[in-house]
């Protein structure tokens, strides 16, 4: 994709913890001692198993063996200094906070992680912004963390793992969307999550490739839940960003959801418009990966089936490697006006940058 003249925004870059010990300076004394003395090393279920080809592109793996994208210098080299040279990048950090059953541990780790991001990343490069990591399984704590960061304009979004133990549109989770909406922050659902329940309705798959390929089902569950739960009816200005889950699955899901809504809407009478209307207005999706077909004409049709030019957000997803490089060919078939929006305008109207 060509460099846009308006500032190019990269909506999904990963700040990776080099090791849990990097959070020690940011943890309270009690938790420092727990880490040092009990063997508690933070969450142990990685969203991205380190050895996988998808976890880091070859060019992103440091020679010294440290994890890809684990310090700001690596992102400067791999994102800002590389084509297409974004002006701004939004950091998403994953630490499987949702896998901790102890709310105090979860809350402390989330807070420390955000402090680490602020100190080791945001303070060191003005081009960086970040998502607020929260203990998503404890809505009260999530609200508290959102409000704690609210005054810092470098935090531009609330991050939730797409996998959770109950769908995010559930009544119990309303306070988190309210807190985000009150602060004018979009909420991102990001690939990943280790909540403790299986990633499919039929139990645990054998292979990582099944989790990886099948996660689109979880994105669908969450989006359907959030719409059915009336989150957008309650928060007309809220934006929901779906990150690192692809977008090609969306049109067929909306055909089904709109059809069902016509006859089943009495069950959710606060949903006053077809679900696809809400999606066009409230939902944004990053393009890495795109999961659209290789054939350029089919790619262009997958993009146009979304029904709006406002939905897609450019992202590199550095340092991950989805093998989506061939999407370059596909993008060539998409109208130039749409590409320009994807590269910049859609992000600028989603985030306060």
């Amino acid at each position, binding site marked *: 994709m060509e460099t846009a003249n308006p500032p190019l925004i990269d909506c999904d870059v990963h700040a990776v913890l080099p090791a849990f010990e990097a959070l020690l300076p940011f943890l309270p004394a009690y938790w420092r001692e727990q880490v040092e003395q009990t063997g508690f090393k933070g969450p142990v279920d990685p969203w991205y198993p380190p050895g996988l080809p998808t976890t880091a592109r070859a060019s992103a793996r440091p020679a010294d063996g440290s994890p890809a994208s684990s310090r700001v210098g690596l992102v400067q080299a791999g994102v800002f200094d590389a084509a297409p040279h974004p002006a701004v990048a939004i950091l998403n950090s994953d630490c499987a906070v949702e896998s901790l059953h102890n709310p105090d541990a979860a809350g402390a780790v989330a807070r420390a992680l955000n402090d680490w991001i602020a100190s080791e990343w945001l303070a060191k490069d003005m081009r960086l912004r970040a998502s607020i990591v929260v203990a998503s399984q404890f809505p009260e704590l999530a609200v508290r963390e959102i409000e704690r960061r609210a005054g810092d304009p470098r935090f531009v979004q609330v991050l939730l793992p797409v996998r959770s133990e109950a769908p995010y549109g559930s009544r119990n989770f309303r306070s988190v969307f309210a807190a985000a909406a009150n602060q004018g922050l979009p909420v991102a659902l990001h690939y990943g999550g280790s909540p403790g*329940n299986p990633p499919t309705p039929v139990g645990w798959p054998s292979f990582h490739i099944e989790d*990886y*390929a099948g996660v689109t089902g979880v994105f669908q569950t969450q989006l359907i839940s959030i719409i059915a739960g009336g989150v957008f009816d309650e928060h007309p200005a809220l934006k929901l960003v779906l990150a690192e889950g692809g977008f090609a699955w969306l049109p067929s899901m909306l055909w089904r959801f709109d059809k069902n809504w016509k006859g089943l809407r009495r069950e959710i009478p606060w949903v006053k418009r077809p679900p696809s209307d809400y999606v066009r207005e409230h939902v944004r999706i990053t393009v890495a990966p795109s999961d659209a077909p290789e054939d350029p004409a089919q790619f262009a049709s997958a993009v146009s089936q979304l029904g709006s030019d406002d939905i897609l957000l450019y992202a590199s997803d550095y340092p991950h490697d989805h093998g*989506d490089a061939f999407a370059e060919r596909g993008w060539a078939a998409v109208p130039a006006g749409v590409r320009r929006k994807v590269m910049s305008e859609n992000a600028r109207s989603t985030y306060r940058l």
Partner: protein
Amino acid sequence: MSKATPATSLVDCDIHNAITPAAVARHLPERWRQYHAQFGRRMTPGDYYPKATPMASRTDSWPPGGGPPGSDLAFMRRQLLDAWPIEIGILNTLITIRNQYRDYDAAMATAANACQVAEWLEPEPRLRASLLVPFEDPQLAVTEIRRHAGDKRFVQVLIPSRTTEPLGRRKYWPIYAAASESGLPIGIHFGGWSGGHPISGAGWPTYYIEYHTGMNQTFQAHLISLICEGVFEEFPKLKVVFIEGGIAWIPPVLWRLDRSWRQLKAEAPTLRQLPSEYFRKHFWLTTQPIEEPPEPGQFLEMIAHLDMDDRLLFSTDYPHWDFDSPDTALPSVLPPGLREKVRRDNARALYGFA
């Protein structure tokens, strides 16, 4: 959806005959009849979602003589088999074999199959049936498959889509072996009880509309599992039918799965072709509940992306509320040749109907 040109016959690949507890009891051996009456089928813990209508059925499908929708053959003839030119209808009995005491599950499957023969297939020559099996105990399932080997009125082995494990897992392979051996497809139909797993990959949704809109997710998990576990390398003749999953969600899954496999193929080394190639070689799809894109052209685009013209099977899902009507459900933009394949020819070819 506007009216299509009617009159050519069709095969309905998904009809739900309701086999009442009393009907099953007629065919259960005495030892299980008491058990069934006394302990019976325990309520599933926590997966109840009130459906849009009683028994999730069309509100006009209650037989005037009594009994639940789908329980009265004479009324089914009136409302369905005689109302449209249905040359063959395939029954998918939805008694849930519930992963309880395995011998009881097996007895229920055997009884339900016997009931199907006596009370549906014998009196109505247009009907065929799917074979119920205690699928969570594959050895007992194989026994039931072999019991009916050679009875051509059973056209496939039925497994509900909510299982305790993804269906590619080794546990289920003996069923695939027996089905392949008998030349029977596996029909995976939406429904069942996943042994306590929530109905989504992110826990329990709140509303029935979420349940229904998310139906494809169970099929998706099985699609990915069956292919990635190498089931089709092991059983190259195996055929799988997805029943009541719709069709439009498939192309994006194949795009993503192919791409994923290119990156991660070292993890699934038995595969020798692209996942999408296995899918197109081994799977069939019933059309109901058919998706309704806002523009007719998008439906044709989707059909082109799907590239499975010979694998689409028309189904009504009678008597459920999300029933697809034979005259009006298939969009009028469908070219006539494809319409005939979907309404009849593909089913004839798959199931060996004349």
